[in-house]
């Protein structure tokens, strides 16, 4: 098999590597994990983003072979769904703080099992599939946030109860911003639709 590399792909791969190395460096890792909010809302999304970059770096021939096993993007979206459900468990977050091998599993799992498969599925998913994924992600973020706000005791042993509530509010805010950003274009007038384009005039 011959793999042809394109400059944007190589750049994405390098960026993914740099991002992972930076996030893995002990001082930055410790700093981001010292707070529940930075752990959940900065470090973990960036690890997922590294996976997205990896997908862009894959040679086209490999992407095509993966696509044979990923009709309509469904199998790999399902994979990302399971992996993100697992990493939303409070005990998974605690375990990543307490156990080095769970930390390693997080650093490998978020890019490889969420970011990468989701990016590979994004186009084949189509408009409805993407909408389904986005709607789920936004609503789960809001629900998780609400749970953190409403929980009377600590859900994570590794973080303070005040910080848990703060993280909860941030999660709700992120869900709100994402929902607005997603819906906003529908309310923006972007000039008249050319006649006939939508079949409606």
């Amino acid at each position: 098999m011959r793999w042809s590399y394109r400059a944007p792909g190589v750049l994405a791969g390098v960026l993914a590597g740099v991002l992972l190395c930076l996030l893995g460096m002990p001082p930055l890792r410790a700093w981001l994990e010292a707070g529940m909010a930075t752990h959940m809302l900065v470090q973990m999304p960036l690890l997922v983003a590294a996976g997205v970059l990896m997908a862009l770096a894959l040679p086209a021939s490999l992407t095509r072979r993966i696509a044979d096993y990923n009709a309509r993007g469904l199998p790999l979206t399902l994979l990302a769904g399971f992996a993100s459900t697992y990493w939303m468990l409070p005990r998974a977050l605690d375990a990543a703080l307490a156990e080095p091998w769970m930390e390693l599993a997080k650093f490998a799992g978020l890019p490889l099992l969420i970011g990468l498969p989701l990016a590979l599925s994004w186009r084949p998913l189509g408009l409805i599939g993407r909408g389904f994924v986005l709607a789920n992600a936004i609503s789960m973020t809001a629900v998780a946030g609400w749970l953190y706000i409403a929980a009377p005791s600590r859900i994570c042993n590794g973080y303070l109860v005040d910080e848990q509530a703060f993280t909860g509010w941030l999660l709700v805010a992120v869900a709100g911003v994402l929902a607005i950003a997603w819906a906003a274009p529908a309310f923006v007038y972007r000039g008249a639709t050319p006649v006939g384009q939508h079949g409606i005039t």
Partner: protein
Amino acid sequence: MSRSIAAGLLVLAVGVGLLWFGTDGFSAFTSEAARRHAVSEQPRVLPDAVLEDQDGRLFRLRDHAGKLVAVEFVYTRCRTVCSALGAGFRQIGDSLPPAALGRDFVRISVSFDPANDTPAALKAYAQRFGADGTGWRVARVNSETDLKRLLDAFGITVIADGMGGFEHNAAIHLLDRSGRLALIADHDRPLAFAAQVRTRL
């Protein structure tokens, strides 16, 4: 297409399996629930730490082998949860046959803050809640390594709250007659714990 269906089914099986094992059969979503579940399935052997009680006496947990031992973790400057823990321990003693106290059932409040909890501080805490030193001992662990090993074995996470105090997962622990950690119960339901003890006396 058939390859994608196979891939999807594989993801489904592995994903459900991952969540099943990751939550102990969809029952434990937090690390606190996980530790309670693990102990109830398999009583846990504890490390042999040296403790010092409110009267300056050195002892080990295994010195109480043959008796049922209730253990909770506190720091005496704490005015919130640890006060509830102290009051709960007192209630447990009050609701059990007086003849059993010290003879068949011993309570130990273990401080995880040996720097501040001198024997005098432990004594003050003991007097505040009525711990007599035989049926109820208030103790600290002097060796830092012993303390860490003990907290790890019990599954207690202690984090500084940024105001000179600590937050920790609070619970009442029961050691069986061979000194193994056999039960972890809610700290705010001391009478339910006392009922459990009564069935084992």
